[in-house]
């Protein structure tokens, strides 16, 4: 697992106003916890967007804080759902030699036969929860989907995993399925029909009232 560096600053005041001021100044408020540490910190928004924007929960980051360096995982990222901006980040400090629980993304490899025949690939699960030592965390689980035909599916149990990694997600869950594409049915929409009916009824009632 490759490790990358990120510089954090300690936050002195922790309230709504100071947090908003921090965001306006181009920094992201964050918290660092785990392994006996609990610190309110902040990181540079540009640095985060450049290198870590899509970092998944299994990427080990070296977080520099004052004179210390912590090995951390991104446990949670709060985003503004309309603008997409990052509001807050949770960093989880890990200790070498101590087992931890994290999520590992699934990468699909190849183009399924079913898609060439007109099917649609649906990925039901993006990440799998695992328990392992920090040094054994895989970058991703690769699944070959090139042999899948329409109607075929793969489950968590079909994912090849190393011996030192324990899967916590239900092994019966479907990861990927190739479904049929739906043909477009209606030549005349239901709405148009109903509007026509309503106009006819409306005309009749008005005549009756007169």
């Amino acid at each position, binding site marked *: 697992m490759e490790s990358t560096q990120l510089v954090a600053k300690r936050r002195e005041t922790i309230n709504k106003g100071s947090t908003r001021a921090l965001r306006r100044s181009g920094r992201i408020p964050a918290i660092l916890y785990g392994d006996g540490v609990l610190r309110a910190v902040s990181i540079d928004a540009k640095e985060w967007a450049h290198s870590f924007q*899509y970092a998944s929960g299994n990427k080990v980051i070296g977080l520099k804080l004052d004179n210390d360096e912590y090995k951390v995982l991104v446990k949670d990222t709060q985003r503004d*759902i309309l603008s997409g901006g990052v509001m807050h980040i949770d960093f989880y400090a890990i200790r070498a030699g101590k087992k931890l629980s994290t999520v590992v993304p699934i990468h699909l490899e190849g183009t399924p036969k079913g898609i060439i025949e007109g099917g649609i*690939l649906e990925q039901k699960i993006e990440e799998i929860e695992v328990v392992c030592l920090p040094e054994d965390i895989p970058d991703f689980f690769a699944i070959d989907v090139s042999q899948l035909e329409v109607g075929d599916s793969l489950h968590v149990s079909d994912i090849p995993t190393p011996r030192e990694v324990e899967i916590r997600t239900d092994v019966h869950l479907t990861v990927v399925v190739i479904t049929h594409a739906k043909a477009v049915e209606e030549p005349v929409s239901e709405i148009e029909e*109903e509007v026509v009916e309503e106009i006819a009824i409306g005309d009749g009632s008005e005549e009756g009232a007169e």
Partner: protein
Amino acid sequence: MLSPKRTKYRKTHRGRAIPNAKRAQRGNEVSFGDYGLISMENMQISARQIEAARVAMTRHIKRGGKVWIRIFPNIPYTKKPAETRMGKGKGSPEKWLAAVKPGTVMFEIAGVDVNLAERAVELAGSKLPVKTKFVVRHHAGWD
């Protein structure tokens, strides 16, 4: 059109779409397809508007794609008949509404390319009473 199969009460308080309401806390991620249409406003959308949007979208993508409708109209909207005097009780159910908040994913599409999906979603958005935004699903672990 979408409507509940059965309800506990025919008429209920239907609430209001308050401006500047809190953002959607659930149903705010593209979970099934590859692309989605999110609402930027808080509003109540009728079953007829949802159906019009669906038709616009499916007609544009023609064949090969799959569409998911993520909202369901479960709020009854009542109306008194025209030229009726006040009183004599509440009006009869007229239509069904779905409540959406800013960030609610209303429709999802899969199995089509991004340009076709964006145009289909734009057409669907034009049938709705809210400002909308096209979003693309980000698959975990890909930069």
